[in-house]
């Protein structure tokens, strides 16, 4: 197989290195003096999250500060990622209450099914995404941690208002 050589004839204007260099320098200088800053300056500015943004969970509480959860077991059942651990039991007055309620936020895929299925409107996903920790174990949120979260909760998709307007 012979080697076939593709021979090009370049236009004069394009083979000038000096001219191209000057053009490039002009372009970079233009950006230097007149920056087209389009990025959000993250820690100072923050993007407005959609009301349906699904971030880390939050457990809502009753007026007396107790989690609304009644340990019905629907969220661990519906959870496609199996990230919710629930051990039902009773609280001090004998009402059904979760003895253990843990969400592994690493395992979670933030589908929002738990919020959708919750009959007590207790577990919610939150409009929150700043979750850095120093330790993997800290990503398993227990009931105390979930109730202590204060970020706004996400709203569910409303079929009557499909575009969230």
């Amino acid at each position, binding site marked *: 197989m012979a080697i076939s050589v593709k*021979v090009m004839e370049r236009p004069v204007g394009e083979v000038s290195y*000096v001219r191209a260099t000057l053009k490039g320098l002009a372009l970079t200088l233009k950006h230097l003096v007149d920056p087209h800053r389009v990025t959000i300056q993250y820690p100072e500015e923050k993007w407005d999250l959609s009301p349906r943004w699904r971030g880390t969970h939050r457990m809502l509480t009753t007026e007396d500060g107790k989690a609304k959860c009644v340990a019905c077991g629907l969220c661990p059942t519906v959870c496609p990622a199996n990230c919710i651990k629930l051990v039902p039991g009773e609280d001090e007055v004998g009402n059904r209450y979760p003895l253990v309620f843990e969400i592994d936020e690493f395992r979670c895929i933030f589908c929002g099914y738990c919020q959708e299925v919750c009959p007590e409107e207790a577990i919610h996903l939150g409009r929150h995404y700043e979750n850095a920790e120093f330790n993997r174990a800290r990503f398993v949120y227990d009931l105390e941690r979930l109730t202590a979260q204060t970020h706004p909760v996400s709203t569910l998709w409303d079929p009557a208002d499909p575009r969230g307007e």
Partner: protein
Amino acid sequence: MPLDPMQLEPGLWPFLIATVVKMLVVFTLYMVVVAYSTLAERKVSAWIQDRHGPNRVGPWGLFQVLADGVKNFVKEESMPGDVNKPTFLLAPAIAFTMALTAWAVIPFGAPLPTPWGKVDLIVADAPIGVLYPLAITSLGVYGIVLAGWSSNNKYSLLGGLRASAQMVSYEVAMGLSVVAVLLAVGNVSLPQVVAQQQVGGWNVVLLSVAAFVFMVSAFAETNRVPFDMAEAESELIAGYHSEYSAMKFSMFFIAEYANMLTASAMFVTLFLGGWDIPFTDWDTTGPATVAKALATFAIFATKIGAFMFFFIWIRWTLPRFRYDQLMSLGWKFMLPVALLYIVIVSSGMVLLDQAGVARGSTAYRLAFLGVNVVLMGLLFVILDRGRLISPASSRLERVRLERLRAVAATRSSIAAGEVR
């Protein structure tokens, strides 16, 4: 004993003390400037790319350098197995030291009057002058070559080899371009070069081809884009310093910026009038004052800053050359141009001398200016057809092109079995 205000007190001790003080001041300033030039690089690159650059540590990220320094000091020093240990340890030290020493002969301001006499703002007014930085900076390549060789890593080795080949190639062009300046000055002492420009006008105008060759060579000598073949990360990971970490890596890093600074200072001294303040004679005539010393130092710093900025600006504009392009530019273009230019400059000087035109006169200057304008025009308009970079890819004559095309067509048809 009453002192002559224009002379430093004679004797060894005053000289020694003044020199040590100058060394300390220069070294300190130099290190600070080197450190902040890394920040400047990051900031300028960020602005060019529509970003903000470091802005977390201190106001506008000004303390970023400190943070980086602390980080590099406390990072783990890794030592790969099977490296040549003494050389591996020595290499960054060589690179670092050589980058620092080159500064000794560069004058950075008008003389400073002190209670003990007039002090020249130059660490060492060595008689060999311009040869000294050339020699020292070429020693700096040993740091890179040794680092590449001792790392026991093929990428490091290739990086070191490239660096040395590149240095040798461009050293020639650089040296020859300096010859033109020395011809015009008639001396190798850098203060003399500055003095000549104060009288006879900046060399960048009168010897612009030499300035151009020197500038391009300076980029190559400092391993900066577009000639940073030694650490071409797309091919060689990080080149010669792939295996280095923490402070050892930091020393290479400092050396790179120190080299940039030295190259800038050399360019400023040789072609931009050194510490000369343009369009005024105030700085060169009359008695030395503190104000003059400070003003000239400031203008020197400004010039260096501008050239440093140019370094950075180029880096974030141009892509890296291919290695063959680098070599062909060095040997096939820069060297002939520099050689030819020496011939032209020396012939011009002889001719003008014969014609009785006094050196430094307006006619003399205009003649040189004219020659340079013509030469630059030739260089940029006529020669610049791709030959600058790579003669192999330059424009072909039409006849030859068509012959080549015919050959290619025949070959491919034979390969396809159409002709037998």
